[in-house]
């Protein structure tokens, strides 16, 4: 009786796993199926490897959008990484325990701010800062908003990595009478840099996947990134803006953009897992 009930119970658990797996696989298959007409079109390379995105005329060049996405993510991450490492080091070595707790709490509060609010903040306060001859939308505010989004989690993750086995390192350093900045540069950095870079690559994936915050500060004009204050449009923003009214080939192209984003993000995740 007991074993029969156990078998039924295990069957229920397995079927639940199966259903979830099936839904997830169906989702991915659907995206590929919708993108298929765009993937097998005759002049694929000529179409995709241009920067002209004119859906009415059947031109779906994605290069400018890919470049904009990569540039915004790269700039955001380039600001976020050193800032986060500095914050983690300050919290571990230079703050009192009470100040450390307060800083961690503030970081958690900032981390819990939804990205749409970061976009709102960027459009109301950052965009006017960059405004001059142009309205101010572009790479500059995008990088600032992305870095605010990435820094809290990246700092807290870096903090956890650095704190791991820190006491052992510290004792050794203390016996050798090494000063703090030398200890950080010569002992801690060589020991922890691989893990720190892994986390940084994961944050790059998060930056590439961000949609709303960037949509609100980039100006959404399809163009190559030429400066900090000229409008651009990312891959994700194009999907979010055009999907509600897209038909036929245009719709397929948007799903193809989704596949491109997914590939870029998974590539970053794959790279961050590779070193483990």
């Amino acid at each position, binding site marked *: 009786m007991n074993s029969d009930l156990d078998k039924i119970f295990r069957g229920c658990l397995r079927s639940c796993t199966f259903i979830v797996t099936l839904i997830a696989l169906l989702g991915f298959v659907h995206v590929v199926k919708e993108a298929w007409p765009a993937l097998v079109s005759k002049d694929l390379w000529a179409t995709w490897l241009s920067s002209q995105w004119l859906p009415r005329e059947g031109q779906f060049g994605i290069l400018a959008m890919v470049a904009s996405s990569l540039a915004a993510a790269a700039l955001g991450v380039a600001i976020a990484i050193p800032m986060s490492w500095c914050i983690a080091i300050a919290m571990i070595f230079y703050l009192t325990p009470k100040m450390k707790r307060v800083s961690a709490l503030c970081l958690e*509060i900032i981390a819990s701010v939804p990205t749409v*609010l970061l976009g709102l903040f960027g459009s109301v306060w950052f965009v006017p800062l960059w405004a001059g001859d142009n309205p101010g939308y572009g790479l500059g505010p995008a990088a600032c908003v992305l870095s*605010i989004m990435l820094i809290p989690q990246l700092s807290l993750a870096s903090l956890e990595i650095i704190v791991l086995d820190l006491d052992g390192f510290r004792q050794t350093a203390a016996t050798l009478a090494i000063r703090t900045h030398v200890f950080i540069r010569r002992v801690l950095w060589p020991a922890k840099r691989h893990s720190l870079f892994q986390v940084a690559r994961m944050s790059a994936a998060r930056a590439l996947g961000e949609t709303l915050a960037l949509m609100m500060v980039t100006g959404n004009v399809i163009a190559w990134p030429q400066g900090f204050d000229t409008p651009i449009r990312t891959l994700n923003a194009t999907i*979010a803006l055009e999907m509600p009214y897209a038909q036929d080939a245009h719709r397929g192209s948007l799903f193809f953009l989704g596949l491109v984003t997914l590939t870029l993000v998974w590539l970053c995740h794959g790279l961050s897992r590779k070193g483990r």
Partner: protein
Amino acid sequence: MMRIISLAALVLFLCVGMGLVGLVMSEGLNGITWEFLSTEPTRMGRSGGIGPMLIGTLWVNGLASLLVAFFGYPLALDLWIRRSHRTPKAERPASFLLTLLAGTPSIVYGLVGHSLFCRALGLGYSSLAGALTLSVMLLPGFVAQIVASLEELPQNMFVAATSLGIGLHKQATHLILPCLWPSLLTALMASWTRAMGETAALMLTSGYNSRWPESPWDSMRTLPVHIYELSMNVAGGEAVALRSATVLILSTTLIGAMMPAFGRIVMSWRSRRNARDSLDREKRFEFHSIS
């Protein structure tokens, strides 16, 4: 030098980050009244309230949380059993898929939800389609948290239960579930907080309707989507957007602050109940010994 640079970075970021929260709150707190929280928006959202959006957010998040709990707990249990029985081949595909799902950007979830739930299943723009999409999105985080909590439980407990002939279904309901309550609630609240801020996926699945929702098949606008609409597509909507943003920040911070407190309350309630039960058992034992 390193001290100055690192402390400057910390102070600069905390000033910008907390300044952001403070500025939004200072500009938004003034206009938050009961009327604002309970009425429909008028003039495209420039005036009126955010009542339908709050209900829409609660509706979509509530449905998504229910779905996540319904599928997440058995899925986590199944993965944990396979892992503890050392059957990696059986566990690997599901774990790999969950890892892939965890790394998928929200706009791709929006595409999947739009294509699979709105079009293929015929749900259209509805809160049900939004909730289904959100639940798939929240599942990896929820399952990872539950599996981690399951691995922390003392394994001797299960060895003892199995040696006493207690079946797996009884262990899951009478042994694991009571131990896992705080973790389950914390994981659900974490999922809820993440769902509260989700915008891109819901724009493509639950739609933009700003009227009062009547059923899960209705299109409805969540609070983050409303903030986006007001700040991007409605001229002069910034003031209401900031007020709505304040409501969103307050609710997410409140839920975030409640998480550890709630876990502690549940733990203390459980320990009080266990103490009372053991006292009752002792009394019964004494009574039987005397009689």
